[in-house]
Each structure stands twice: as structure tokens, then as C-alpha cells.
């Protein structure tokens, strides 16, 4: 078997497992982002738009694009943490798999393929709903799906490589509390980074979610001005996220191999 066909087997096993667990992901993948869109975009939007008027786009559009990238992050981070720990420690399906011709790197590539599929589906659904809310136009919204998927894959791979070095599940919750939640709140999802105190702005500029959010916004809201996005060229965002995926893949295949075949 080639790497590709072995990875496809792994993706297939993920898909089979998903038939049982999809219910749990409905809430985090679909319902939560939509609730945030309704509460923050539509509800809070009515206050923001009648308030200071600092944004050149309706707040709904601003939040919807931010949430699209953030949803990619959330899904990628989730896939890269708990199921990976389960594969090693709890469900032990990784341990089972490597007693067959499947190797640790096949597991990584296979999960990557499956995540790409799932993220695409999740984000297309989100984009369509945001369009129905009136947050964006359908064309640009769909064009913004690939960058949001890319954001998710960046988080998936980097967090996978971190997870495989962890001893138990406790640190995973810590990751969400101290990395994912702050990123969600401070990387430009809900307000432009220019509002952060000066010393925090450079920090925000190097976070991966910032690049995801910027990219989605620049594509989904064509022609927005400097009150909404920075003037950083898009290729930098792409390069950042692609590097993240490449480094994440490289590290996670190495580290998972080390973990499973010490």
C-alpha cells in the first residue's frame, strides 16, 4: 500500500467513528457559531451600529467573518486535542492501528484528510447561514471558506503535535482555557486589533487566528477599508498559515511516532 491509500484507510476509520459521534460535534461546530452570530452579530450589532460608528461595515459582517475563521480554529483545535489523546490513552485506537500496516505518520495524514473534508463542510454551512443572516454575499462568502479551512488545519496540526507530548487530559483543558479562548476573544474576532493597548498589538499580530481572520475578512468583504482590516498583503497571511500547517505536519508525524513507538 502507498502512503495515500493507507492514509485513506485512516480517514475512513475517522469517518466511521464520526457516524457515532457527529451529534456531539453538531453543537460545537454548527450551533455555537450560529448562536454567537445571532447574539453578537445581530443583537450586539444593533448597539454597535447605533453607537460610535467606528467601523465602516455593519458589525454583523465584521463578527460573521471573524467567527468564520474562529470556527475553523475551534474545530481544528478540538480535532487536534481530545481525539488524539483518546487515540493514545483512552480509546487507544492509534495503538490498535499501528499493529497493522498503518504507521503513525499515516494516522496524521489520514486525520488531516478527514479534517479537511469535515472543516470544509462545517464552514460552508456556516458561510451559507451567515449569508442568510445578511452578513455577506454568497460568492465572496464561499471564496472565504478555503482560508478558514486552512486556519483550522493550521491549528489541527500544531495542536496535534503538542497533544502527543502531553501526559494526560488535564493539560488539554488548560490549552483551551489559556490559548484558544484568549485567541477567540483578542485576535480580532469581535473588535479590530487597533483597539488593543499598544503593547499588546504586536502580540496579536503574530497569533495565527489573526491571520485567519484577516484573510477571511479581506476575501469575504471585498473593498473594506482600514477601519476593518490591516494593510498587510494577503500573501503574508497565506504564507503564515501554510507554514503553520507544514511545521505542524512535520512535528506531529515525528512526535506521534516517538510517542507510539518509543
Amino acid at each position, binding site marked *: 500500500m502507498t502512503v495515500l491509500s493507507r492514509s485513506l484507510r485512516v480517514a475512513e476509520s475517522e469517518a466511521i467513528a464520526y457516524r457515532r459521534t457527529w451529534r456531539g460535534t*453538531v453543537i460545537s461546530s454548527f450551533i455555537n457559531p450560529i448562536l454567537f452570530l445571532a447574539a453578537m452579530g445581530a443583537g450586539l450589532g444593533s448597539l454597535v451600529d447605533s453607537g*460610535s460608528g467606528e467601523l465602516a461595515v455593519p458589525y454583523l459582517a465584521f463578527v460573521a467573518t471573524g467567527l468564520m475563521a474562529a470556527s475553523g480554529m475551534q474545530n481544528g483545535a478540538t480535532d487536534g486535542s481530545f481525539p488524539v489523546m483518546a487515540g493514545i490513552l483512552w480509546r487507544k485506537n492509534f495503538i490498535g492501528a499501528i499493529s497493522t500496516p498503518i504507521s503513525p505518520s499515516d494516522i496524521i495524514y489520514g486525520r488531516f484528510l478527514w479534517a479537511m473534508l469535515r472543516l470544509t463542510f462545517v464552514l460552508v454551512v456556516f458561510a451559507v447561514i451567515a449569508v442568510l443572516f445578511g452578513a455577506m454575499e454568497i460568492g465572496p462568502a464561499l471564496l472565504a471558506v478555503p482560508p478558514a479551512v486552512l486556519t483550522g488545519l493550521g491549528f489541527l496540526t500544531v495542536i496535534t503535535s503538542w497533544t502527543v507530548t502531553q501526559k494526560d487530559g488535564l493539560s488539554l483543558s488548560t490549552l483551551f482555557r489559556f490559548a484558544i479562548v484568549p485567541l477567540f476573544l*483578542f485576535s480580532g474576532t469581535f473588535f479590530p486589533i487597533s483597539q488593543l*493597548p499598544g503593547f499588546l498589538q504586536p502580540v496579536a499580530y503574530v497569533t495565527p487566528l489573526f491571520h485567519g481572520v484577516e484573510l477571511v475578512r479581506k476575501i469575504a468583504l471585498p473593498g473594506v477599508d482600514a477601519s476593518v482590516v490591516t494593510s498587510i498583503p494577503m500573501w503574508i497571511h497565506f504564507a503564515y498559515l501554510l507554514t503553520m500547517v507544514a511545521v505542524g505536519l512535520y512535528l506531529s508525524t515525528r512526535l506521534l511516532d516517538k510517542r507510539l513507538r518509543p
Partner: protein
Amino acid sequence: MSVSAPSRISGIGRLTPFRAQRIWEHNYIAYRRLWKVVFSGFFEPVFYLFSVGVGIGALVGDVSGPGGVPVSYAAFVAPALMAASAMNGAVIETTFNIFFKLRFQNVYEGILTTPMQPADIAIGEIGWALLRGVLYSSTFIIVMVVMGLTTSWLAILAIPGSVLVGFAFGAVGLAATTYMRSWQDFDLVTLATMPMFLFSGTFYPLDVYPPAIQLVAKISPLYHGTELLRGFTLGVLDWTMLVHALFLLVMGLIGAAIANRRLDAMLRK
């Protein structure tokens, strides 16, 4: 030894109708090693507060608080986050943690072979959950004071207020857990708490909604907790706060009664 020999139990143990404090002792021992995990739960609402304070607040400007008084956006949202932290602390405790002990470890079955009773467990666990909720909300209010988001002395009353929030959610959480069959059912917990967090007048006054939706939002228990704490931290008292307090109290009592009955039926088959 004669058959009716008096037992060794004497003094206070015999007198107290409940030994709920033993459950606290148990949890205290178990949590000594996990304090970091417990403590880290405090940060999430604080992050939200910063995000609102430095970012979203600037976009929104002032909003109309209780009694129509204009307040800064951060001061408006802060008490709601405080109520949500009491809710989350109590709910995490009575759902995830209890489910594990109840369904997988059979810890309570063992406990019931000692002089402990199901009611001791129900009261003890609800009390402990409430405590965790109050721990979060009272550390949170310190942050509020430091950030200048509350200036009224009445804010002190927000702490007993969050006791009520913790009680109501802890009791209902425990009752709900007795109905849970698998981990998958916990999605329903998120499905209940997430919308409550977002739509209970947390981030904006309910009057942005049409009247029909306002009515729905007013059924949300977190709405009552939020309004109660908001009145206290903004120093605006109002008789409707009595209604909010009563709502939470009744909700907690009903939850506790159901939890107690269900635990008894589950554990003493």
C-alpha cells in the same frame, strides 16, 4: 457484645440531621491536588471582561443600565459575566464530575454502605457546587472593583446573590445528571448553558429584541441571576430584584427535591 449495644457514634454526628459536610470533606481532599484546574476556571470570564472592556466597549459606548441610567458597556456586562461564572462553576461540578462518580466509579454506592444517606449526598454535592460557583464569582467581583466597574457598596450583596445563582444551577444540574445516560448527553448541558449565556441580557439589554423574544429570554434563569447581580453592582435597587431572587430560590429548591428523590431511587434499588 450484646446485639443492642450502643454504637460508637456520638455527639454531633448523631445530632446533625445531615452529614452533608462529609461530602465537602471528601471533595476537599480530592481537589487539593486539582486546585490548578479549579482555579483556571476563574480566567474565562475575566478574559471575556477584558475583551469587552478594551475592545467591544469602545465600539458600543454607553448603554442604558437598570432604571435607564447610562453606564459604561463594561460595567453593564461585568455583573452578567459574574452571574455566568457562578452558573458555570456550579454546572461543571454537578454535571461532569458527578456523572463520573455516579455511573462509572459507583462511589456513592460505597458511601451508602456507611451511615451516610442519599439526602446527605444531594445536599453535600449541591452545596459544594454552589461553593465553586461562588468562588469564581467572588474572585471575579474583585477584578471588577480593581477595574473600577463597580463603585457601590451594595456590590457586596452580589456575593449572596451569586450564592442563589450557584444554588439554582447546582441543584438543577444535579437533577439533570441523574437523567443522563452517556457522555453524549452532556451536549445537552452545553446546549442549555450556551444560549443562556448569550441571550440572557448578558451583552445587551433585552429591549433590542421584539417583545415576544423578550418574554422567552425572561424565562431563562440566568437572566434573573444577571438582573439581580446587575442591580447590586450598579447600586440600583428595585423591587423586581426580589422576584429574581425568588425565582432562583424556587428553581433551586425544586431542583434539589428532584435530585434527592432521583438519587435515592437510583442508589437504593
